[in-house]
């Protein structure tokens, strides 16, 4: 077995432990469980990083050129962002809402062929690397916003219905969730904008035109429009709270479609393999 595959499998196992614990944590709020979640995630993240590094060394290029690598890198960005938020804000139950997304991504990644391929000449560009990294950082910010949006919706439901059982005590306050959601969407939107711009520059150097109305480009544009709409509604119309939380879940659905749907269902120049 190749070393990067070994690291990948180990990371997958640790993420699995962390995800299962984070779901158990929802029902039994023991302190030990929360420590286990963080430890397993952190170890998984180190192994995951090693796997990506090993792959980079072996292939000689940044490993984001097929579905396996892309989904894996997407998961890696999300774990990075999650660990940052976990340490910085200590939001109760955050792991229970984020780790399942991480695990789904890494599981999807594991189903795709893992062979290292000879890089097509069109992908050999620094612009390409920057474009992909920015895109996945943006996606992971949107994934976090979605998870936090879910938390907001649950907490808001408790407060509106005045039934404060269950997770009410352990979920963060609405204001904190709303603010972090807003920051994440701003961050994601900025990164996505840069990703689209660098993508266009790369497209120009690779194919000679900035924009080709390829399905991936169209769907990226749709996601971008959804998020600019969220920001517009928030800043100009004064939408906040529940509505923005719902939109951030919807927004992430378009992101997921842009990432998986377009690659698997629609054919275009972005299609891997």
């Amino acid at each position, binding site marked *: 077995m190749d070393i990067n595959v070994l690291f990948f499998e180990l990371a997958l196992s640790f993420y699995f432990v962390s995800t299962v614990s984070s779901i158990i944590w929802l029902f039994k709020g023991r302190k030990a469980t929360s420590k286990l979640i963080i430890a397993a995630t952190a170890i998984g993240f180190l192994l995951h990083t090693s796997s990506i590094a090993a792959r980079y060394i072996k292939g000689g290029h940044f490993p984001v050129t097929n579905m396996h690598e892309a989904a894996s890198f997407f998961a890696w960005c999300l774990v990075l962002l999650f660990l940052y938020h976990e340490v910085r804000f200590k939001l109760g139950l955050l792991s229970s809402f984020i780790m399942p997304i991480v695990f789904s991504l890494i599981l999807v990644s594991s189903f795709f062929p893992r062979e290292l391929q000879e890089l097509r000449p069109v992908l050999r560009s620094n612009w390409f690397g920057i474009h992909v990294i920015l895109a996945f950082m943006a996606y992971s910010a949107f994934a976090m916003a979605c998870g936090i949006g879910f938390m907001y919706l649950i907490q808001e439901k408790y407060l509106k219905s005045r039934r404060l059982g269950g997770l009410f005590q352990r979920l963060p306050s*609405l204001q904190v969730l709303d603010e972090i959601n807003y920051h994440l969407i701003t961050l994601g939107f900025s990164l996505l904008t840069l990703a689209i711009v660098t993508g266009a520059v790369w497209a120009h150097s690779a194919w000679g035109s900035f924009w080709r109305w390829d399905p991936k480009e169209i769907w990226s544009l749709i996601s971008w429009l959804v998020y600019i709409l969220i920001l517009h509604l928030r800043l100009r119309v004064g939408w906040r709270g529940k*509505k923005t939380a719902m939109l951030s879940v919807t927004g992430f659905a378009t992101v997921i479609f842009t990432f998986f749907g377009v690659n698997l269902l629609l054919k275009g120049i972005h299609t891997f393999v």
Partner: protein
Amino acid sequence: MNILVVGLNHKTAGIEIREKLAFDGPKLGRAVDILKASPDIKENLILSTCNRVEVYVIVREPDAGTEHIRKFLSDFHEIPRDHLDKALYVHTGRKALAHIFRVASSLDSMIVGEPQILGQMKEAFDFALNKKSTSVYLNKLMKKTISVAKRIRTETKISESAVSISFAAVELAKKIFEDLSTKTFMLIGAGEMAELAARHLINNGVKDVFITNRTYERAEELASEFSGTVVEFDRLLDELVRTDIVICSTGAPDYVIFKDAMHDVMKKRKNRPVFMIDISVPRNIDPEINDIDNVYLYDIDSLQGVININIQGRQKEAEKAGKIVGQEVEAFLQWQASLSAVPTIIALREKAEAIRKSELEKTLGKLGGIGQKEMQSIEALTRSIVNKLIHLPTAALKSDTEDKDAMIDIVKRLFDLNKNPENETNSERKNEQEK
């Protein structure tokens, strides 16, 4: 001579019926007067709070008395009998005493251990005293009730953890806003519960405080107490645009804040969340306001949910308190038994006899050598003086008059017959010493 409790509380009746049954403002005085005028009712006291309405009366016939009070409540508030009777509970004798002690000790409260009920009980008692609607029995019972409640508060931890509405308000505010120090708070109206909640919010960091009240002077008074700013009542809605937390507790019979107005306010605030607590009964904030996005409205009933979380911890303390209530009920029943004439007459006789004997011995000792005959004459003399002196009070105690209870009580006080330690409880003796 029977104690009777007829009432309803948050457990037996929803807010809709409680707000109808509330004896607010001038209603209380009228009700007490009506009951006082009734020949069947010897003493009466009405306790009316947001969570309960209870009538304590002393009657001859408990069954007839119950019917009387039920009819009175139904007529007075114009509520159909069948509607009302379902919500009412009735206690007599031992159970009635235990109930009153439990209520005052906050064992029966929505939030077990909340301290406001005792104050409300004292107010109700003061009101009755002013109206002279209570007499020997209820006066004694209410004093006892207050001392029982104090004893429970000091001997158990029932009130130690956070306080009722205040606790709930802060807990919820923190789940909506996280940091209260950047938030603006407005108190609409006044009232003990509202002021307590306001104080608790301020203790938890709220800095910008606004006070509004229909009476400007009252608003100014509260504003200086909380170092807040007075807002004119007419400008309430304008100020709401800047307010994050609202506690509303006015005596208004209808809504003060309506849904349409709140819609406009939310538009102007750009949907920044508002936490509204309506502790008025009848409610002062349109309940449908809760349907507006980013508005979180809690009335007194919905605060119940918040409190349930803490209730378990207090359960153990409540059990201890229950035991104290049991002891105190027995002690009170002993006092009640002593109210009948016979023990009082016996006590009076014993007292007189004791004085006679001791004085006689002193005199005989000083006189020295006197004859057997003289001694017998002196003895007979003392006996006849004492008998003649206590004959009249004894006869009066034996007679069956309306004010017999009062008389028994007065005789006991005049002759200091209460010193039998078995009849007194520890707490009361302690109280006596403090005085």
